[in-house]
């Protein structure tokens, strides 16, 4: 439209009131200004509307419920302030569930990360049928956790399970996987590890692939062995991704539910006869749906939420520290490496054709 290009009308008229110029702006113009200013918000709105509906509102509602005496079936029976929180913080079963959660989390997160890094490092090498191996490690993740738990639950059965049968054939005592605390935690952690190690390995592999190859080359030329390269270069370079993996593992680990719920589904008390592996989410579920104490269950949900936030903040602080030191260190290290590398290059260039052959060989490998 040409109208948009015409200059503002006669200057002789007195300065119009504030709103006037806006009104005089053509609709198209205003629309486009609106478009520029408001569109981004509209584009991201669906997420926030959904998040508000299924995330924020339940969070707030749960908090309201937690401040009341509230039976699941008969409904609210009076405002009692923070009494539910006080009662839960004094309840040995709450602390028991928290202990179980953290114990299972540690037993799963640590071996899982170590395993994932090792698998990723192996996959990062030049191996045959790369895609096959990479897809293979992801298969456990594709299997639904219910199926995983059913299979493992059967393998860990105390009287008829595969593992105890194997132990018996070596004349070893059977392990009480389902009725003793530590063995049950190991068994549940095994299921978690089986499912998540491959997934984390792939994420770490992606990070490893992003590490510039020429640094490795120069390090190799400097005489650094594979192990030295792994510890001094690979690990520091993937640290930010490691932190991401640790955070997601923490959040997932603190919310573990399916595995302990289905590990021994026929037990009278969810999470083991004497609550040996009753995690916090399982405890919360039991409170709400078996004991019908919706108020206390909501209080536990909020306590768990706060604990996860606490872990998140800790992770954030630690990771920021590591990332900033890392950035400084790696920058310095990288500059040094590159300088050395360039230096060598010039040296080699002087040496003539021998270097060309070496470089070609380096590229081929």
């Amino acid at each position, binding site marked *: 439209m040409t109208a948009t290009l015409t200059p503002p009308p006669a200057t002789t008229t007195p300065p119009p009131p504030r709103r006037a110029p806006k009104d005089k702006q053509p609709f198209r113009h205003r629309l486009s200004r609106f478009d520029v200013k408001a569109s981004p918000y509209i584009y991201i709105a669906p997420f926030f509307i959904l998040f508000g509906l299924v995330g924020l509102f339940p969070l707030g509602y749960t908090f309201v419920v937690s401040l009341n005496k509230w039976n699941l079936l008969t409904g609210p029976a009076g405002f009692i302030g923070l009494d539910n929180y006080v009662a839960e913080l004094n309840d040995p079963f709450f602390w028991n569930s928290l202990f179980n959660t953290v114990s299972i989390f540690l037993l799963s997160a640590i071996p899982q990360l170590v395993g994932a890094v090792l698998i990723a490092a192996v996959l990062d090498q030049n191996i045959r049928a790369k895609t096959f191996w990479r897809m293979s490690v992801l298969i456990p993740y594709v299997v639904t956790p219910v199926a995983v738990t059913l299979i493992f639950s059967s393998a860990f*059965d105390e009287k*008829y399970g595969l593992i105890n049968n194997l132990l018996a054939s070596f004349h070893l005592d059977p392990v009480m996987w389902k009725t003793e605390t530590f063995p049950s935690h190991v068994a549940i952690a095994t299921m978690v590890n089986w499912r998540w190690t491959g997934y984390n390995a792939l994420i770490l592999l992606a990070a490893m692939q992003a590490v510039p190859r020429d640094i490795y080359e120069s390090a190799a030329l400097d005489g650094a062995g594979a192990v030295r390269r792994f510890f001094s270069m690979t690990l520091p370079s993937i640290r930010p991704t490691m932190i991401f993996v640790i955070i997601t593992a923490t959040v997932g680990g603190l919310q573990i539910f399916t595995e302990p719920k289905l590990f021994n589904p026929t037990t009278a008390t969810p999470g083991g006869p004497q609550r040996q592996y009753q995690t916090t989410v399982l405890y919360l579920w039991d409170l709400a749906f078996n004991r019908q104490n*919706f108020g206390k269950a909501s209080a536990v949900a909020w306590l768990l939420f706060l604990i996860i936030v606490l872990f998140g903040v800790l992770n954030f602080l630690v990771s920021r520290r590591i990332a900033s030191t890392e950035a400084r260190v790696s920058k310095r290290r990288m500059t040094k490496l590159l300088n050395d590398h360039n230096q060598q290059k010039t040296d080699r260039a002087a040496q003539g054709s021998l270097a060309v052959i070496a470089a070609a060989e380096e590229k081929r490998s």
Partner: protein
Amino acid sequence: MKFSRRTKGLAAVASAAAFALLATGCSGGGSSTAAGSSTDPITLTVTTFNTMGYDDLYKQYEAAHPNITIKATNIDTGDNAKTDWQTKQAAGAGLPDVQAVEEGWLSAVMQVSDQFNDLSQYGANDIKDRWVDWKLKQATDSNGRIIGYGSDIGPEGLCYNSAAFAAAGLPTDRDAVATLFGGDNATWDDYFAVGQKYHAATGKAFYDQSGFLWNAMVNQQKEGYYKTDGSLNVDGNADLKALWGKLSTATTSGLSANQTAWDWGKGKAFTDGTFSTFVCPGWMLGVVKGQVTSAGGSAATGWDFANVFPGGAANWGGSFLTVPTQSKHPQEAADLAAFLTSADSEAAAFGVAGTFPSVTAAQTSPAVTGTNDLSTFFNNAPVGQILADRSKGVVAQYKGPDDSVIQSQVFGPSIQEIDSGKADGPTAWNNAITLLNQLVVNK
């Protein structure tokens, strides 16, 4: 019960005749109830669980009532159905017109019994004589409102393995076994005495685990975990404590196989002689059959069903059909529930799903008393007749709001303690009382 041992051919004729009678009976009953209902097309939703054997009955009802479409949902287990009901009840929306309720969570339903229609406003008074009296009492709330029509019941008899009994030098004939346990006056002392004899002869366990026995012991009492006035009845209850003493003494002396209930090593424990007696409500017979078959066993494994139960008549489980107040068609829903719990329907459901009828007339129906898959599996035991006998004298015990919590979370851990030998009887009882105070008294 020798008269019940018919030849196979005769039984086949009898059951065929029964089904023929049934089909005609149902269509007749259906058209008479249709007279009172409106003719506008409506859809009735029904939620059931496990296998209740209603699929053919729905079709019959739809054929007799052209204006009614039945939309049925069946949930795999009673526990999952409870979660489903609780969630919808708490949300205040989404319940079906006819909701099946299991006895195990009836006490939770009774907490909100005003959320269910009083069926006596929809014709319950005309048909309330059809059920065994204690079933009707269970479905009546504290204000005298009838909120459910009884479908099946779970009178308990004793399953035993005749091969294992023979190996221990005990009688194997089911009448002789009933006498061995004390016949009509069988007590828990008799049961445990036979158990000790069996254990001495074979060195093996007598029962799979203690939980089912304890469940029966409590259900046999006039008042269980709660008194009729609604107050708790566990701490200081001398009767319960004495029974616990008997159970724990027997268990710690090796009569329990400490099996995981509902798992039993995927049925293996039923076939390898780990234990030789088992508490069997009617619906459990199908479970036993399933477990034995899945572990590669068959009728030849030797399981039989005796017309005796220690400590007197006991009931475990059974269901009700209720009409939640959320239903938009309470009259039609109540009519459907009445149809599904008629004598003919319950007899037909027994034929399909093995659910033992709570309607007296159905219990004597040839379809129930005759030969079927289950009776064949249990060495041709007259399963239907035994169960009808076992249902006599059951008491409708008052169940308090936390009854299932006490059963599973207060006594569950203690039962595991005595089964696994972690604690002796008195210690386990004290642990249960501690848990009771923690979970129920000071909740």
